[in-house]
């Protein structure tokens, strides 16, 4: 478009250098482009279909097939587990699985949880099957009537020293696991967060590796009720599910025991730190913040280009209608959010570096920095998703009626960002967790 050509004719800075800044360095830009190239040219991914007119089942099949191809690609490339959430950022996942990735929670929560909360023996027992796709997992924490207040979860895991098993039970429908992505019809295993009881004593919430479907037939195992929860504002093929247990027996060895232990006789060893099991949540919240900025960058790019191309108003001396970006109101709708992309991405990337540092300290036994990291991650996830959600809505409005069309992608980006304000800790609750830490300080 000639108007865009004018805008690009003489930039005041080197765009490639700025891209390097956004990505965190030249090497990161190269790595990103290399990954994108593999995804965009992958034989099973490069050809896309419009999914808007497909049925719910057709969309699920399409997105699951592409998510599986992506999973295989990650496996073939031997990507580090901590890099996966970056690879699966909204930019790429919006291309591979436009309606939501049924394997997203497997990749960004289930696998990191095993890596961080299973002990070495457990990791070696399960990881091979995880990486060859025999085990597909999810992370089942939230319940139908119990959410971010984790201590209030009611699913129980009662240890029986005689059989050396935990009795996993859903006391009533309000305690049904509800929301985990991939749980509906995709996963055959779940890390289940449940109230542990040993010697008749409550020990708090602990994670358990639980088989929920037969690995061969994919049928739900005895005592398990599982299914999909239905349509949502967006991300409809994320395959969010529900899960209930009717006195399901889980071997003692399936409690994830890096932080706390239950011995054969039922004796219990506490975790080294109260928040030691929060590692996955912290990791995911930092990843959500980064990913949501990614969605904002896409929305900002769309609105910026449209604001140049779109002309509307009384023709000026040159006979042309003014570009809408010439209006001060349009500038206020678009430009601060471009600035926010830069500021929020760089600040969140710093938090990611901090997370990496603290995680290594915790592995070495030093948990001093964990409470502050937890508080900061809660706060940043809330602030970034709230800001990005509001910003994407402003950018959608900046595109007038055309921004309301699905084909603009702005509705999907808004749904994605606002989902981030809701899941993995509703924002108000997260902010109160940060506030509790601040007041103590």
């Amino acid at each position, binding site marked *: 478009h000639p108007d865009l050509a004018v805008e690009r004719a003489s930039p005041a800075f080197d765009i490639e250098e700025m891209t390097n800044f956004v990505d965190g360095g030249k090497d990161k830009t190269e790595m990103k482009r290399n990954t994108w190239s593999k995804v965009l040219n992958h034989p099973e991914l490069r050809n896309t279909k419009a999914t808007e007119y497909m049925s719910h089942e057709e969309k699920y099949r399409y997105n699951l097939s592409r998510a599986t191809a992506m999973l295989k690609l990650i496996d073939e490339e031997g990507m580090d587990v901590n890099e996966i959430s970056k690879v699966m950022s909204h930019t790429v996942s919006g291309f591979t699985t436009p309606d939501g990735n049924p394997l997203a929670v497997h990749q960004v929560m289930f696998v990191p949880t095993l890596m961080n909360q299973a002990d070495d023996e457990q990791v070696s027992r399960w990881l091979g099957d995880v990486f060859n796709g025999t085990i597909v997992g999810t992370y089942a924490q939230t319940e139908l009537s119990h959410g971010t207040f984790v201590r209030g979860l009611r699913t129980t895991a009662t240890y029986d020293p005689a059989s050396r098993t935990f009795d996993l039970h859903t006391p009533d429908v309000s305690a049904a696991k509800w929301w985990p992505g991939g749980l509906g019809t995709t996963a055959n295993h779940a890390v289940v967060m449940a109230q542990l009881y040993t010697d008749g004593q409550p020990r708090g919430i602990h994670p358990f590796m639980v088989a929920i479907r037969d690995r061969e037939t994919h049928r739900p195992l005895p005592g398990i009720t599982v299914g999909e929860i239905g349509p949502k504002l967006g991300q409809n093929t994320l395959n969010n599910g529900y899960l209930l247990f009717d006195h399901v027996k889980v071997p003692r060895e399936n409690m994830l025991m890096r932080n706390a232990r239950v011995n054969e006789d039922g004796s219990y060893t506490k975790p080294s730190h109260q928040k030691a099991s929060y590692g996955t949540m912290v990791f995911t919240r930092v990843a959500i913040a980064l990913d949501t900025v990614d969605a904002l960058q896409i929305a900002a790019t769309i609105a910026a280009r449209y604001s140049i191309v779109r002309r509307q108003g009384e023709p000026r001396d040159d006979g042309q209608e003014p570009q809408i970006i010439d209006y001060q109101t349009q500038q206020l709708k678009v430009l601060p959010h471009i600035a926010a992309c830069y500021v929020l991405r760089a600040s969140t990337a710093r938090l990611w570096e901090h997370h990496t540092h603290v995680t290594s300290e915790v592995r070495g036994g030093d948990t001093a920095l964990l409470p502050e990291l937890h508080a900061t991650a809660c706060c940043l996830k809330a602030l970034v998703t709230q800001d990005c959600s509001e910003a994407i809505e402003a950018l959608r409005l900046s595109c007038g009626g055309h921004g309301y069309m699905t084909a603009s992608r702005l509705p999907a980006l808004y749904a994605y960002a606002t989902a981030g304000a809701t899941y993995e800790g509703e924002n108000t609750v997260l902010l109160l967790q940060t506030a509790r830490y601040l007041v103590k*300080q």
Partner: protein
Amino acid sequence: AGGSHAPPAAGSAVTYLSRPADDTPFAVGSPAAYVAAVGRVARGRVTEVAAALQADRQTMPEPDAWNQSLVQLVAAALAHGRYFVVREFAEVVSQQSSSRAIQQMLELLFSVYLAHAVSRAEGDFITYGGLTPSDIRLNRRHLLRLLAELRPHMIPLTDAFDLPDRLINSTLGAWDGDVYRRMFEQASHSPLNTDEVPASFHQAMRSKL
């Protein structure tokens, strides 16, 4: 803020709570002055709610005291988060080894972000940040001037996000700007455009009217 804990470790994100407030005077156009004001807002919000909690704890049970302050606690946490964001970005900009042109652009972006942040929470900046109503008026004008300054760089700045068209996947946001052709092409995919007269017209409407 509650005064019951040892001072935070060096490098901690909450160090500012145990130090005197940064009294850098506010000056429109000075990013450092804006960052200091954002810090004063965070500090003011946190210390105020901590004091309110301490007072309420004398007269009511802890859960009730906590509930009396929930709205202010959320505001305090958000203010703390905002301060974390601007302080980290200020450090990123100061540590950059990029060209002068990039440095200037990052400073401009930061100025826009800060001026916009103040404009979104003017009451907080008057109450806790040390700004006067006159500062607020000046900031509003400053923000609009900054937007005009940023405007010519809008497309290069979004091009720098380096997003291929297939990843953007938008009729409005493709690199070439061919918006209206793409919109027609997308509309052509509607199943209702397959036939000039869809069967549903006869089956669902004409048969009944």
